[in-house]
């Protein structure tokens, strides 16, 4: 034990002399780090889920029935189950607009367990395999061939829900038997919770009468814009020409959601800022008290040869220990909290993308450093005062 007698020993002993005060500081820093971590994760998740979702759809324009803009965003960005319909003839009218290159479309159906289907409420997306460019990139690797009639492929998340992959199951969808032939790659969009079938199946589905879909209806049109055309202008052109539609360009998709979530982010960030300022004051107060309590001890250390730098080291080590333990406590509790929050907060539950391990670790590191940094900032002035304690204090009576 004596081999390890260092300045660090002094710092640890100092912390142990008032365990309650040390504990309160550690908990305070822990809470701060936890909230920084939670907020950073939230902001990061919001940003990445919106960006990836609109990018990954692979379309420049999304055309939906007038008034269904929000519903379409809910489906594509938030994993919600919603349907909306427009006439299929609109596809050709979109094709004819100048600047549009590729066009494909999808039809959305909702399964209702018991009445038509044997899977829980899920969005079923019927798509046209000849023109499709939205699903295919995620499909090719898995299947390596076209989907046949009576076959379905399921999104990454719903695969888990209906246990595909663990056991091969066939499901009844809208009164028809479907063979689940594979799982779509993870897209990080609302597609992850859907089931995909070819549009050929629609005829059979309607024959059984178990869906509210009417003949000749589709839900959404995806379009690509020719090189050299501005997607914004083309979107405007589509809306002007076809009044039955709302058109969003890639960057507009999710704009309302972004704004709402950005407001959340802002409120959270402000709260964390206030918490940080409070923590600085807390550390400042505690270390000012420490400076007063231990002035004579510091004077004695100075009188027997300690330099200012020794004193500074002892006290910074003390702060560092509080900051690090608080940081670790904060990372553990913050991660746990984020995990449960993601399950119970509607707004987080519906975000399709999750954070990568790299993102999680960098957020942890940043939160940890912020917590420790805030400790340091709070202790800066008091430590500066502590190091100026005069050796002369050693010759005075207590």
């Amino acid at each position, binding site marked *: 034990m004596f081999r390890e007698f260092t300045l660090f020993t002094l710092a640890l002993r100092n912390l142990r002399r008032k365990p309650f005060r040390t504990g309160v500081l550690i908990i305070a820093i822990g809470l701060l780090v936890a909230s920084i971590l939670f907020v950073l994760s939230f902001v990061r998740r919001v940003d990445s889920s919106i960006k990836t979702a609109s990018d990954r759809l692979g379309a420049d324009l999304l055309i939906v029935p007038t008034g269904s803009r929000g519903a379409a965003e809910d489906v594509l960005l938030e994993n919600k189950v919603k349907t909306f319909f427009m006439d299929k003839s609109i596809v050709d009218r979109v094709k004819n607009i100048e600047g549009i290159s590729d066009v494909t479309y999808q039809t959305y159906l909702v399964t209702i367990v018991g009445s038509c289907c044997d899977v829980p409420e899920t969005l079923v997306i019927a798509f046209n395999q000849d023109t499709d460019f939205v699903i295919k990139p995620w499909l090719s690797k898995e299947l390596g061939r076209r989907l046949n009639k009576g076959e379905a492929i399921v999104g990454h998340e719903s695969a888990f829900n209906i246990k595909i992959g663990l056991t091969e199951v066939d499901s009844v969808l809208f009164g028809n038997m479907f063979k689940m032939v594979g799982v779509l790659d993870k897209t990080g969009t609302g597609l992850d919770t859907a089931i995909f079938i070819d549009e050929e199946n629609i005829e059979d589905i309607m024959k059984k009468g178990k869906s509210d879909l009417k003949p000749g209806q589709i839900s959404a049109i995806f379009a690509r814009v020719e090189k050299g055309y501005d997607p914004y202008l083309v979107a405007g052109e589509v809306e002007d020409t076809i009044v039955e539609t709302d058109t969003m360009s890639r960057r507009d998709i999710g704009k309302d959601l972004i704004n709402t979530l950005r407001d959340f982010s802002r409120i959270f960030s402000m709260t964390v800022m206030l918490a940080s300022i409070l923590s600085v004051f807390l550390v400042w107060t505690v270390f000012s008290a420490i400076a007063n309590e231990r002035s004579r001890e510091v004077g004695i250390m100075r009188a*027997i040869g300690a330099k*200012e730098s020794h004193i500074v080291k002892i006290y910074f080590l003390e702060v560092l220990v509080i900051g690090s333990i608080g940081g670790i406590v904060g990372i553990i509790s913050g991660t746990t909290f984020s995990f449960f929050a993601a399950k119970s907060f509607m707004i987080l539950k519906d975000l399709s993308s999750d954070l990568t391990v790299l993102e999680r670790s960098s957020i942890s590191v940043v939160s940890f450093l912020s917590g420790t940094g805030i400790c340091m900032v709070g202790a800066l002035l008091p430590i500066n005062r502590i190091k100026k304690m005069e050796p002369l204090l050693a010759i005075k009576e207590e």
Partner: protein
Amino acid sequence: MSQIEIADISKTYAIGDISINAVDNVSLKIDKGDFVSIVGHSGSGKTTLLSIIGGIIGPTSGSVVYDGMDICSLNDDKLSEYRSEKIGFMFQFASLLPILTVKENVILPGLFSKKGLGDNIKKAEQYLDMVGIGDKADAYPSQLSGGQQRRVAIARALINNPEVILADEPTGDLDEETEAEIMDLFKRLNREKRVTFIFITHNLDLARQAQRQVQMKNGLLNEVLL
């Protein structure tokens, strides 16, 4: 050249409008290996003088030259080094750190010294045995009597092998027997290692055991010629 040359030092304290000359124009030369006692009434300036020599406070005027080095002109780091490497100080009042055990208190100066801890642990045990509290090495200062704490402070002052030991009433609360032992220890270190000793005492018998004796009165210093 003497080891310590004190030339015309004064220390003035201002309390409100009144100023006190705690040390008044004192000059003194101390050679390596000198054994000096300081006597004087309470408030005569003994502690102030000893602290100036030890680099703990600076004089208002005058100079203290140690081995040719003017310690009053040293920067804070160099002055700390001077305190750490050259001087062993025993303070008049309790001066142990409550968070450290007796043994840790004794080796503490090593943490601040360029030489580091070295074999201080073994030495600490020896010194603690020597001052008669070897069995208390792992106790905390709060578990010791005032006299026992003073002995720990003595061991601490010796640990860095100082060239000069400045002791402010080192045997104050000690019984006569221990007092004699401590004086024997001082004399032995003085004889064998040529450590310079300057100590303050109220005990005239002790003072007379020194090779040089000085008296202080109202900040003024007088050497008793033997």
